[in-house]
């Protein structure tokens, strides 16, 4: 499930570590696939507006903002130096893995939209048909082999 699931649990008044917990890599391989949004600020002539851009950027990346936002959403802060007192169980686990560097890039970054689409087609075919896992594995390998 996506990070939004944690946000839903939050909203339902559940507490990370006691009511539910996170098992990165199902608890076996503690590796996280990361991905995120990017903000681009255009270069402006107006001094005032440039300053406003800076205020927005520094607010976004402020450790306090990061923790508050990611607790609500259920994802991880983009920086490691946040106040751990405010962080919940899941976030602590995640930050630890990030600090160890056990990260692989998200498939959105690794594969082109074309390969992604072929992969999705394979998945939807596999889950709705009687295709054997071996066949699916072979075709998955083919897609990755010809990916660009």
């Amino acid at each position, binding site marked *: 499930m996506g990070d939004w699931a944690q946000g839903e649990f939050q909203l339902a008044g559940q507490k990370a570590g006691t009511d539910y917990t996170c098992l990165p890599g199902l608890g076996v391989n503690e590796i996280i696939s990361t991905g995120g949004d990017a903000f681009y600020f255009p270069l402006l002539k107006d001094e005032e507006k440039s300053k406003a851009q800076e205020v927005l950027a520094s607010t976004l990346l402020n450790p306090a903002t990061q923790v508050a936002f990611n607790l609500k959403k259920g994802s991880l802060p983009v920086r490691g130096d946040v106040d751990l007192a405010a962080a919940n169980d899941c976030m602590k686990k995640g930050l630890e893995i990030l600090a160890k560097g056990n990260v692989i890039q998200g498939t959105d970054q690794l594969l082109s*939209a*074309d390969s992604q*689409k072929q992969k999705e087609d394979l998945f*939807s*075919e*596999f889950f*709705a048909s009687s295709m054997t896992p071996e066949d699916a594995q072979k075709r998955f390998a083919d897609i990755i082999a010809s990916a660009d």
Partner: protein
Amino acid sequence: MTYDGPRRTPAGLNQLLRNLNAKIASIPMILTAVVIFLGGTLWTVFYSFTNSKLLPRLSFVGLDQYERLWAAPRWLISIQNLAVYGLFSLIFSLVIGFLLAALMDQKIRFENTFRTIFLYPFALSFIVTGLVWQWILNPEFGIQSVVRSLGWSSFTFDPLYNSDIVIYGILIAALWQGTGLVMCLMLAGLRGIDEDIWKAARVDGIPMWKTYLFIIIPMMRAVFITTLVIIASGIVKVYDLVVAQTSGGPGIASEVPAKYVYDYMFQAQNLGQGFAASTMMLITVAIIIVPWAYLEFGGRKRG
């Protein structure tokens, strides 16, 4: 042939100047046809030999896109589905449409009311039709649950959730939507048949079904051809009905070529692959249309 040689030039010029206003007025339409339809088609075919991704680019890869296309299981399923859907929707909409029109032509009461009812589905878009039939065929809300609540508790009718028959679920919706129009076209054709032919057939003692089959239908050839072209073009471009009913599911069991083209052009951002698929669609249509057009128009000139 040689004797009218000297007269040829003025006659040709006269030909050109005749109905000059009409010719000038039709220039925009001619330009549209040539530039947009013909030009766009050639452009698409041309770029299907490149490895264009999000934007078209001129780097040729020969037939690579076509090889990949014909190796893709999703494309093969799409073609299969189109063949099944096309064949059945052609046969059934013509047969049902003609039968309805023939029944309607028996000077029945409330003909206008029936005509309105049968034609009404045609006023709905494929998206609405698809959504309605998705609900009707849904096993939890639709036909299955109604029949089960009447007592047949093991009754199963869920075409949209069974990979083997999902395309027939789509076919039902398409027929419901399309036969009304076919009926109207056929009815117009039947009304165009002279009353005297019916009287003559009756005098000769020919049974009604024979009159229809051997006299009326051959006389309605033009109507049948118009209807055929309308139905066939609807079949090849079927897309929104599938999107609304199953969005290609379960799995990829109800995918159609037009959806493959759209998905690979805009979701997978692979224009080359989408162009190759749409070129294959064009070739499929051409294989059917060209021999027919040759027989239809080439033959008439000779005869």
